[in-house]
């Protein structure tokens, strides 16, 4: 392997693959465009926020989402692998990680943030989740169990946080503004209500 830069190596690989018909440059372009500017029905943080907001607003949807997450999420966007929804409660706070690589619910949320893929997060959150969450500014009550889910198989996870206080009567669209990506991974709480 030469010592060329990743940029040069990536370009060389793509040229070779295109030349021999293994990829088409147009499909690469289209995939990047979709990832960087997803429409409303493409995997993205915004899509995940809609799911969480609806689960907060609609008890039937929440029940369906927990009982059949693949089917329920599949109504919005195809789920090629199993996915489980982890509902936080007053006594359990869920956090997801993939210590072995960087498995993430991309089929729902799009690409993971850089910190999720970092060695620091991967190595530490299974061992000392309270210390790691504190680095996000998240302090979990000592009486609350933190459960860290290591995504060691093909099943993916989505955290369903507790609905913030002070949001009585809010619409789904209003609720969705409180749902951050990190809240769906479990490293931060949703934004506060009123």
């Amino acid at each position: 392997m030469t010592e060329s830069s990743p940029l040069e190596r990536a370009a060389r690989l793509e040229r070779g693959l295109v030349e021999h018909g293994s990829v088409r440059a147009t499909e690469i372009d289209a995939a990047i465009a979709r990832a960087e500017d997803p429409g409303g029905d493409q995997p993205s943080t915004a899509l995940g926020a809609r799911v969480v907001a609806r689960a907060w607003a609609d008890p039937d949807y929440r029940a369906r989402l927990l009982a059949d997450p693949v089917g329920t999420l599949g109504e919005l966007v195809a789920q090629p692998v199993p996915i489980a929804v982890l509902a936080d409660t007053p006594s359990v706070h869920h956090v997801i990680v993939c210590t072995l690589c960087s498995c993430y619910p991309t089929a729902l949320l799009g690409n993971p943030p850089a910190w999720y893929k970092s060695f620091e997060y991967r190595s530490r959150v299974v061992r000392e989740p309270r210390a790691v969450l504190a680095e996000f500014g998240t302090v979990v009550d000592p009486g609350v169990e933190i459960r860290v889910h290591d995504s060691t198989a093909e099943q993916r996870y989505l955290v369903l946080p507790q609905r913030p206080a002070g949001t009585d009567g809010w619409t789904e669209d209003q609720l969705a503004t409180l749902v951050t990506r990190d809240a769906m991974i479990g490293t931060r709480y949703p934004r506060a209500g009123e």
Partner: protein
Amino acid sequence: MRDTLSVDGVHDMGGMHGFGPVPVTDDEAVFHAPWEGRVWAMAGVLLRRTTIDRFRYLIEQMPPVQYLTSSYYERWLWALERLAAEHGMLEGRGADPVTRPALVPPTPGRFAPGDQVRVANRVVPGHCRVPRYLRRQVGRVERVACVWPRPEESAATGRYGPLESVYTVVFSGRDLFGPSADHTVSADLGESDLEAP
């Protein structure tokens, strides 16, 4: 390339010390350079011709220092170069598409929710999805998570292997990391990675 030596690699970093604070940023850029996007998208295409486990296994064979000093998409690029080479994709050969298995509902297997199980001592060289920090630990089955091909075979052959039940198993943080740990850890482990305790 030595193809059989990655079970105890540096990629298996769960519980490791020394990596310092998490680089928490609110940077939401999907790609931090155009080439990253192209690598990511090429992976999406090439992974139709092999298994996700084969791709992971290739990454795991990066030498430790290179793994730790490469960025995320540099590791992907390294694996894609090897994937293209092993299929002769740059010499005009190709690879047949590989079909991801259809999702089937979880089915009852050897273990049931509530069972105590011991994680096997998975030390045989090759790809493996049992992190080292869980080896030989005892946990409790919470649910049957799914049915999925065994990653060992999928990684070794580039074709999806035989199906098996996958269980979500919950462990005490105290067992894993000592008395100061007050949390729990869950992992999804295949039936062949679990034993009666």
